[in-house]
């Protein structure tokens, strides 16, 4: 197990390097550059700016220096867009925000989704099943860019319970709406996957064995059925976790939370090379970590999988 984790972490390093290289060249291939604007700037000024950010050097050298700085100094460089901020600053400021509402949304979506899925499966074809399936579908068909304004309309403008935006240092009242808006689009899928997988497990021979032992219903479900039923759910949750904690531009936009999602999209639009790369590496590292956690969870759920 420890060996497996170490091995995977070792593989992660070349993976991230490949990610950097590919992203770097894709970025350079995109038309425009951070300093291209509508205003015509004298070539001499541009040359000065290029020299200041190292853009006058050959691309392979830029790449090599970038990798050197990231690996040995953990320095992701200065932002090309905001003169007095480094990429480290941008990430340090935005990521905690994103992580906070993302992680809460992940927990909320997982708990609600799995609970609804289990209830629907256990009470298959009853009103409880129809209600939770209906609720899930309802949540799924409303995308978060529709959900967010509806939430603001109801809870901020009509009921006046919660602020409609801002972060306020992560005060709970500012966190609730982004969490709800982000979670709704995911819990429906989680509920659907849980339900169908739970139904399959409940029809299996070993559940019949558990019932034949005289175990009470809740013990059959939580002691015998839930763990095997979660296998497909867990494989879905890995990427969902990454998607959530790396934020959503929609959430950042509607709730002015100042998370990293918006910073990422802005950086891409502005050709802010260093910020694009920095956030891409962050996403890559998170994805690799989440996949590793999923694999370890797999082994815990299904003893047939040996690490």
């Amino acid at each position, binding site marked *: 197990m420890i060996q497996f984790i170490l091995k995977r972490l070792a593989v992660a390093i070349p993976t991230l390097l490949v990610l950097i290289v590919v992203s770097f060249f894709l970025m350079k291939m995109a038309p425009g550059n951070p300093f291209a604007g509508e205003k015509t700037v004298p070539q001499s000024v541009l040359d000065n700016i290029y020299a200041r950010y190292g853009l006058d050097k050959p691309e392979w050298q830029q790449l090599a220096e970038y990798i050197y700085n990231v690996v040995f100094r953990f320095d992701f460089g200065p932002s090309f867009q905001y003169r007095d901020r480094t990429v480290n600053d941008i990430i340090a400021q935005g990521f905690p925000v994103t992580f906070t509402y993302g992680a809460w949304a992940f927990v909320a979506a997982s708990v609600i989704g799995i609970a609804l899925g289990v209830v629907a499966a256990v009470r298959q074809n009853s009103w409880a099943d129809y209600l939770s399936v209906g609720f899930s579908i309802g949540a799924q068909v409303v995308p978060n860019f529709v959900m967010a304004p509806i939430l603001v309309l109801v809870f901020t403008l009509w009921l006046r319970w919660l602020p409609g935006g801002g972060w306020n240092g992560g005060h709970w009242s500012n966190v609730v709406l982004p969490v709800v808006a982000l979670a709704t689009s995911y819990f429906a899928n989680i509920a659907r996957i849980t339900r169908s997988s739970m139904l399959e497990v409940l029809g299996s021979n070993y559940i*019949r*064995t558990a019932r*034949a*032992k*005289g*175990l*009470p*219903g809740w013990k059959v479900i939580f002691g015998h059925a839930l763990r095997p039923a979660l296998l497909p759910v867990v494989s879905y949750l890995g990427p969902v976790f990454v998607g959530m904690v790396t934020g959503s531009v929609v959430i950042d936009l509607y709730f002015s939370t100042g998370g990293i999602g918006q910073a990422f999209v802005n950086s891409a639009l502005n050709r802010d090379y260093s910020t694009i790369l920095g956030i891409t590496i962050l996403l890559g590292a998170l994805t690799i970590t989440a996949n590793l956690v999923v694999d370890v969870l797999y082994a815990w759920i299904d*003893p047939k999988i040996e690490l």
Partner: protein
Amino acid sequence: MAPVLTVKDLSVRFALHDSVVTAVNNLNFTLEAGETLAVVGESGSGKSQAFLALMGLLAKNGSVSGQALLGDVDLLALSKTELNQYRGRDVAMIFQDPMTSLNPALRLKQQLAEVLVLHKGQDQKQAETSAIAMLERVGIPEPAKRANAYPHQLSGGMRQRVMIAMALLCQPKILIADEPTTALDVTVQAQMLDLFKTLTDDFGTSLVLITHDLGVVAGVADRMMVMYGGRPVEKGTVDDLFYDPRHPYTLGLLHSTPHIAKRAERLDPIQGMPPSLENLPKGCSFHPRCAFAFDRCLAERPALTALDNGREKACFHEGPMRYGKVA
């Protein structure tokens, strides 16, 4: 002595899309303490469903009526919660497919111990010790080590031994074994039958052996009940039914079994197909496949009637039957 189990008018029905099929129709039988009753029939004869119904394990669209008296408790009248006190403790069941009947995610000792924790109120540690002792009894080598294993680390035969151990933990009054050897190698089958015999004798457990394999019946059973189309067609001791079958279906089953002394090129199966329960033939349900059927069989259903030596049969045919000479 009073029988351990008395089943009266047991019927099992399944609601289909737009109809109801009767899988078991007015089944009556008794099970004596310590005896082994074989329940024999083709697929779809209702033999498994009758006993799944006793255990409260019917599929969701199934319903059951009648009585099943365990002592003076009617198992079929109990709520699910009440039934949970009896199943696993007084009545245990083993299933056909040992490969899938154990939970793949739990260690064997967890799956075994929970039965004792539940029914005997033992603490986890005590229960695990008893579980290991039982694993040893069913012939699992290194039981203390194997108890920590997961099901996939065991062979099919070993898993069926674990299932037997699990079923016998509470020394039940009745053990229902639904095709317990069907999925196993022939050599393992013989070991398994030995094990059944030894353990049920030791514990005084009555064994119900549901099977379509007459070889298995001959090896271990005291009495047998032959079922066809959801109804019993012949009951009696194994010796009587094997040496002197009185129902053409029993005769057909015996004839379709390969025999080591006969060098037959081909087996001699019963002609035709088992009937569809949705559409049972009128009269005796076996008549379309019966070599001895006559007018009355087409019009009227023969009732189960008592013969000598506690035997019963449901057939109008009288006198000897000579197989292969179709009139």
